[in-house]
């Protein structure tokens, strides 16, 4: 594992974003260092997905700044952000159902103008990580099971050989056993490849166990942050996200 360096890879500073008049992010600060897994947890509508999408440039930030490797990417077009090797696996997987698994994976590499060698290496990595996809390469994406589709969505994001991978609810709608496989794969990626990961989750227990650090978001603001283990011990976290009773 790469040791977290001094300057964070991604710095989010008092970021604000809104959908029309509804403000979804009300000044968010967040840091991710290289080689870290950072979990972002919070209830429905807290603004977790919005934060992730705003980092990716859609919707645009109203105020504040996003720095990647010290470079301001707040106003960089979405397709340019992908070229900086930030990859995203959107909520609900969103694979291309009528295209084959192999084509889905190639789509991930298309945006970054990958060479044939890079594509082959990326494909190799994805298929060793998710051997199941190897059996399904020529199958249509829509015929895969939910877990396989999630693997495909992550694999597709990995095809651009990202430095920062952002995952939106990778365990959504998956059986616990499959969800654990997905989390295991993320841990492997982080340990073996030194991949930096931002993971947005409602499944706080899983996410905080996996992550080095975590942030808790409520109503468009970060209310708590700390290491994964610390957050798991906090009584308010246990009450809100781990022991059933879910508040606003």
């Amino acid at each position, binding site marked *: 594992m790469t040791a977290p360096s001094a300057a964070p890879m991604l710095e989010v500073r008092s970021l604000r974003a809104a959908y029309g008049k509804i403000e979804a992010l009300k000044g968010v600060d967040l840091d991710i260092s290289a080689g870290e897994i950072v979990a972002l947890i919070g209830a429905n509508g807290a603004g977790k997905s919005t934060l992730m999408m705003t980092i990716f440039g859609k919707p645009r930030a109203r105020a504040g700044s996003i720095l990647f490797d010290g470079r301001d990417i707040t106003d960089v077009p979405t397709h340019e952000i*992908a070229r900086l090797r930030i990859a995203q696996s959107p909520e609900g997987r969103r694979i*291309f159902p009528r295209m084959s698994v192999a*084509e889905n994976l190639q*789509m991930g590499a298309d945006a970054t103008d990958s060479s044939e060698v890079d594509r082959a290496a990326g494909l190799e990595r994805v298929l060793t990580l998710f051997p*199941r996809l190897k059996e399904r390469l020529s199958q249509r994406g829509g015929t895969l099971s939910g877990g396989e589709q999630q693997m495909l969505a992550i694999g597709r994001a990995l095809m651009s050989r990202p430095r920062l991978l952002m995952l939106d609810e990778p365990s959504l709608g998956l059986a616990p056993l499959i969800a654990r496989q997905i989390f295991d794969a993320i841990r492997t990626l982080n340990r073996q490849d030194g991949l930096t990961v931002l993971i947005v989750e409602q499944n706080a227990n899983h996410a905080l166990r996996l992550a080095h650090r975590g942030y808790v978001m409520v109503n468009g603001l970060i209310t708590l942050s700390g290491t994964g283990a610390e957050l798991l011990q906090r009584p308010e976290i246990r009450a809100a996200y781990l022991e059933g009773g879910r508040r606003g």
Partner: protein
Amino acid sequence: MTAPAPGPVQASRLPGVAFIFKKALISALVALVLFSLMIGIRTEAGPTGQLIYWTRFGDLAAMVATVFGGSIVVELLRQWWGPVGTVRIVPPSVQSTLAVARRAIAPILLIFTFLVPVIFYDQRYILDLGILVLTYVMLGWGLNVVVGLAGLLDLGYVAFYAVGAYSYALLSTNFGLSFWVCLPLAGILAAFWGVLLGFPVLRLRGDYLAIVTLAFGEIIRLVIINWQSLTGGPNGVSGIPRPSFFGIPLTPGDDGLAAKLGIEFSTTHRIVFLFYLILALALLTNWVTIRLRRLPIGRAWEALREDEVACRALGINTTTTKLTAFATGAMFGGFAGAFFATRQGFISPESFTFQESALVLAIVVLGGMGSQLGVALAALTMIGGFELFRGFDQYRMLVFGLAMVLLMIWRPRGLIGHRAPTVFLRHSQAISSELAREGRG
């Protein structure tokens, strides 16, 4: 049609005679109500303006009987066919024969098309029909890029056809430019208009996109009608030069192709030449589309059709992707338009009505969105079918509509709904059970 009531499995699988008759009776009753006024009574204005009418109960009875009988036949067919999703066991030998036939159909069709002018050399009608069909094949393939691949519903495709046709007509009649110079120009101009249409509709999808493209088609037509000084308005442009064989005219004179080759002049030469010209243009469209589909841009078009949000999440530039789809489709429409102008020698706004757009769109949808062979087959059946039923003029649309309904019931994804993958594996992926086990489940 109501589905059989869910009962015991046996009963629901095979509804009895009573059920079939009940259903047929209901259908016949509906037919009786519908047709009693439409067919049963015929009214006309008499010589002095008074109303004269007569009854045609014989025809009405025949119609109702047909519906009754047809309903029984349909129900029997459905039972024989089994419920939707039934896995029918087809003998492997038949399956392999079918697979061979399916693979052979495209090459056979292509070879036959190449031989059409040889086989039907003396039959001008067939050659003309062939040219017409090929024009629609080309238009279908062009629109297929926009609708079939990129999933952008375009109801104004005829606009680009018109732009191409008028580009050639005006450039050749005003500046004396030759067909071969104008052909690329027509394509470029049409592509330019494609991009121009693309910009305002970047954010639109589905129905809204359809409405704007429909309006765009009408705008182009209305501009052509009203800009009399340039386009000649409703009178159109006439005296459009015929294409030359790369500079050598196809005329009876001394400098004509026939004289140079030392053969006797015949007007058929020009028809045959036009046939091969449109065939070449259509094949070019097909080849370019197939090539593009294997490149990232073609893949991006298809991904855009599947899920625009996912495309953006992958960092695909959706703006350029959409604009290139519009431009590419429009360019082929422009080529086809230029060909149309040179074949007809005369064009007017009447040739570029919404009906043309609808026809080409129907070809793409019936053919199976995105399938090249399907589009060609659909163009052949639709345009050929129109000609076939020319004799039964008033029933033509009826048959056409019926065919469409039947196709949408039995093949909702179009004639050839299967989508061929574009990424192939270089080495065969024989997965050992070991690997599968390694896959943690």
